[in-house]
């Protein structure tokens, strides 16, 4: 844990069964931040949605990197798909649906797309 900016980093295989680790880590950070149970449920659902979205793009992700940190006022989280040149083409998820789901769950959501599909998803919420 970075003392200056309380931060965690997780690098996971882009595989459904590893999403549990991202979820637990992020919910743990939420617990440290003092989030209420309802918000922790939202963080959990948002984590699932981010991972699902990043794992179902035109170019498949091989790994997913999750970075989350706390500052004085907010909890921030960023998911990034890591792709290799030989990554197989995947079936893209519905971008608008993912965006709507995330924007319902979290107050501040950003999705970044490139030619390979959605590559980065970030959100933050007030503490």
């Amino acid at each position, binding site marked *: 844990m970075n003392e200056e900016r309380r931060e965690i980093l997780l690098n996971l295989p882009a595989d459904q069964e590893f999403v*549990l680790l991202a979820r637990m880590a992020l919910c743990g950070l939420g617990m440290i931040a003092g989030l*209420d149970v309802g918000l922790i449920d939202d963080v959990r659902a948002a984590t699932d949605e981010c991972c699902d979205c990043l794992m179902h793009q035109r170019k498949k992700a091989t790994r997913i990197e999750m970075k989350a940190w706390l500052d004085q006022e907010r909890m921030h989280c960023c998911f990034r798909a890591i792709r290799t040149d030989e990554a197989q083409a995947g079936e893209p998820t519905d971008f608008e*649906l993912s965006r709507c789901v995330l924007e*319902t769950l979290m107050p501040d959501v950003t999705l970044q797309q490139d030619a390979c599909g959605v590559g980065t998803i970030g959100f933050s919420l007030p503490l």
Partner: protein
Amino acid sequence: MGALFEEYAQTHAVHIRDQLVEGYLPLAKAVARRFEGRGIETEDLQQVASMALVKAVERFDLSRGFRFVTYAVPTIAGDVRNYIRDKNSGMRVPRDMRQKLYHMQQVREQFELEHLREPSARELAVAMQITPDELLMLLDMRQQTDVISLDAPLSEDHAAEIGAMLGVEDKGFERVEGSQWMNWIFSKVDEKERKLLTLRYGERLGQREVARQLGVSQMQVSRMERRVLQRLRAIEENGA
């Protein structure tokens, strides 16, 4: 797609329906994918979602002025959810785990009643006399046993409302409109709740806009609204 829906409404031609279904198949798959990891084969989920999509296309009423997606997502998600529930009805959750989940729910409700807010995860762990790790496991277990769905309507500004977690418009709030009611209500709520009620029922803003103004998520607005309503109802029923 709008023209196709119009044509289908007039003719009910199967080939037009099939075109519409084909066009929206990615949507059905996307909804199905949100239910993966619950012990059901992906192909089965997609099959159920596709059948629900056909049903949604057949029943969609263009004249009501909603987007098809707004109507279809909750319909599809509802069918998938029911399917999972039926398939999983024979699955056993260990008894001690069921008891802990039940206990967690009771403690959570009791806390809300006493403190007029949701407990933090730490507070809940303390109240249940379990470690934070155990609580996180329990919360995750609850998510696996529940079927979180997308069965609530999408709002008109295209914001998805995820049914099981999101509130719905409560007709009881129509009573809030009377000014004496407002005065009575404002005497029973805190500052943040007052702002919420003012925006929602004074200015008649949607949950999404209220969330933006309060700097929280739509989901939080929904929960806060539901909690306030329940509390006011309880106060009213008790004659306080």
